[in-house]
């Protein structure tokens, strides 16, 4: 539907999807909701005094050297301009606005929180990293998930320190308000490396999926050929950091070692996965003697262990291309995510091309999420 607005509105009325997709009947599972404390002081009640003072004195110091992010964003703090609460806080900090603008508005039954920013991940100082992760986890639980049970927390782990990460998973893993373990795609080593294995072991033990969200500060240029100039390059390039994660998890044998592990790639789109899978299968066929610890082809492991959130939904001119790409990946492997309140937000009712069809849309919006996240 690429018509002028008035025609489009008419279409929306008559769109048969609209009849099926009634907010309250379709219980949306949203795999990426960015809640955030507005400031350090909102996080202070959950932060040890020693680290609060440290943050006030020295601040956050991440492995890309920037005080915020290396690239200026498309909008202030990368937020939807209509998502700033009236109280002057950050988007994602006001439970009230989050309810009216998002959870109620779309009929979101479960929103999986993915805290960024003041979450400790990427901090050079690993003790600070752990302290901030603990604080953001308690903030999610007490300020968000407890008063609003539709919101599920993520166990943010200071993943460059596997021991501290395991402690955090063990501390919170039994609490059903937490639905996944949360990591970022950019890391000091590719994330299948053995120093991260204890994290996957703990996640598996608690039946928690591990989400890998794009971004992060691993201490390397964002690409294998240095830093690009522009935000548009960073944005388009997130899919490459996702490919690094998938390649590493597969080739290091993480899924052979932890056969019940479920992983979710978050906010990298999904169109890149078939080409990567084909490439890995071909290389595996050529050089399986380099990875004799693998019993199965990469495509089999990917099919079994990796899910992807759909946002930001690719928008090819020919919508059939998106459909066939989803089919290559598997309709049961895609999870809806909105990325609320960020500017590249996907609307659950309008992000999908019409030819996806209602039953598959329902799978992506609801059914698949129930199978992956630890809910209830």
């Amino acid at each position, binding site marked *: 539907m690429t018509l002028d607005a008035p025609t489009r509105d008419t279409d929306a009325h008559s769109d048969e999807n609209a009849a099926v997709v009634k907010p309250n009947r379709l219980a949306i599972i949203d795999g990426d909701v960015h809640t955030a404390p507005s400031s350090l002081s909102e996080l202070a009640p959950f932060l040890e005094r020693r680290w609060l003072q440290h943050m006030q004195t020295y601040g956050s110091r991440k492995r890309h050297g920037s005080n915020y992010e290396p690239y200026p964003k498309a909008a202030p703090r990368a937020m939807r301009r209509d998502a700033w609460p009236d109280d002057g806080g950050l988007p994602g900090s006001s439970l009230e606005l989050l309810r009216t603008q998002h959870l109620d508005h779309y009929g979101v039954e479960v929103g999986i929180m993915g805290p960024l920013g003041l979450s400790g991940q990427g901090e050079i100082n690993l003790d600070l990293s752990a302290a901030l992760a603990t604080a953001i986890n308690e903030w999610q639980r007490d300020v968000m998930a407890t008063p609003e049970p539709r919101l599920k927390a993520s166990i943010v782990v200071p993943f460059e320190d596997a021991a501290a990460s395991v402690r955090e998973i063990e501390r919170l893993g039994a609490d059903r308000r937490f639905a996944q373990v949360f990591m970022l795609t950019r890391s000091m080593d*590719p994330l299948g490396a053995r120093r991260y294995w204890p994290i996957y072991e703990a996640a598996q033990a608690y039946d928690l999926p591990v989400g890998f969200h794009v971004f992060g500060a691993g201490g*390397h240029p964002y690409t*294998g050929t240095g830093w690009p100039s*522009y935000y*548009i390059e960073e944005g*388009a390039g997130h899919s490459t950091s996702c490919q690094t994660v998938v390649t590493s998890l597969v080739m290091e044998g993480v899924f052979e070692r932890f056969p019940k592990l479920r992983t979710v790639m978050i906010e990298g789109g999904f169109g890149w996965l078939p080409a990567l899978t084909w490439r890995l*299968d071909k*290389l595996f066929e050529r*050089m399986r003697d380099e990875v004799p610890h693998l019993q199965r082809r990469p495509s089999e492991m990917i099919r079994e262990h990796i899910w992807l959130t759909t946002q930001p939904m690719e928008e090819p001119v020919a919508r059939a291309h998106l459909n066939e790409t989803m089919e290559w990946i598997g309709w049961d492997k895609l999870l809806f995510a909105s990325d609320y309140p960020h500017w590249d937000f996907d609307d659950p009712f309008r992000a999908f091309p019409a030819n996806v069809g209602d039953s598959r849309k329902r799978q992506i919006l609801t059914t698949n999420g129930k199978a992956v996240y630890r809910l209830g």
Partner: protein
Amino acid sequence: MPLTGAVDCDVHPLTPVPADLVPYMDAYWRDTLEVRGLDFWETIAYPANAPLTIRADWRALKPRADASPDAMAATLLDRHGFAHAIVNCLFPLQSFRDANLGAAFARACNDWLADTWLSRDARLRGAVVLPVQSVEMSVEEIERRAADPRFVQVLLQVMGDQPLGKPQFWPIYAAAEKHGFAVAIHAGSSYHHPVTGSGWPTHYIEDYAAQAAGFHTQLGSLISEGVFVKYPKLKVVLSESGVSWLPSYLWRLSKFWRGIRNEVPWIDRDPLHYVRENVRLTLQPFDVPDDAATVARVMDQLGSDDLILFSTDFPHWQFDGDAMLPKGLSAAQTRKILIDNPRATYARLA
């Protein structure tokens, strides 16, 4: 489908060792190699005995199939009736940190290629390797080779110090455009950075898989920085890149462009446009499953039959037997890939 008349846009000679290059160096550099013990210079790409590096049956030949123009011709050009093959030398001179050293090796490599390959078989064409450590010296090398019509492209690696779209590299594109050279960006790294944005992967398989991500980066950089706006006649050939990653990457780039094109206002049309006009990809390694239906869908996603240039990536093990063409291509597509597209891309391919 007969391969007669095909232009193979990516073949590799057995990589020379410094001793092969010494005859093409001046006295200072000859002595330097000896004084400093520079009798080998290798990177971790293409390990000599890895299966990917040379196909087993070609390795077994005596001499091995990539050892000389004759050996290669027997395996490829004579056997299949190719009209031309473009020879890309992969000596890893880009990994030197010293630009002067890089330039000495680049000059020597190009002389060596002209002398020991291009002069031996009139069907062969060559790529000018560039000491990318210095843009100035790279331009000098392009100028030096411009008079030799056997060189049809210049050769860069997909991973270096900086993304290749940055304006500091533009004199290379200006010189290439001026002399009608295509710019080949080939799999490979200077290894001045880890091959991924998350550090060094453990296995060679992962390194090779990461090359494709390098191509995403370079394509995004060339487009976003406006290289094709500045040099509209430039042809960039992504070599040994794979092809199936391209459509979904362009969907992403195009989507972001719609929202944040004001960051790069010189990009005044969908990024896809620049790919159609200026970018080509070599065929092997063809990273699509071996079934006609899927190949047809990927070709449809690519959206144009002009993009792919035939290549064998000889002697790398990308296909078995003679199955160098994917299943499911139409006769018209095949003809374009084998002959028309390469000839339209390489202005110097007389």
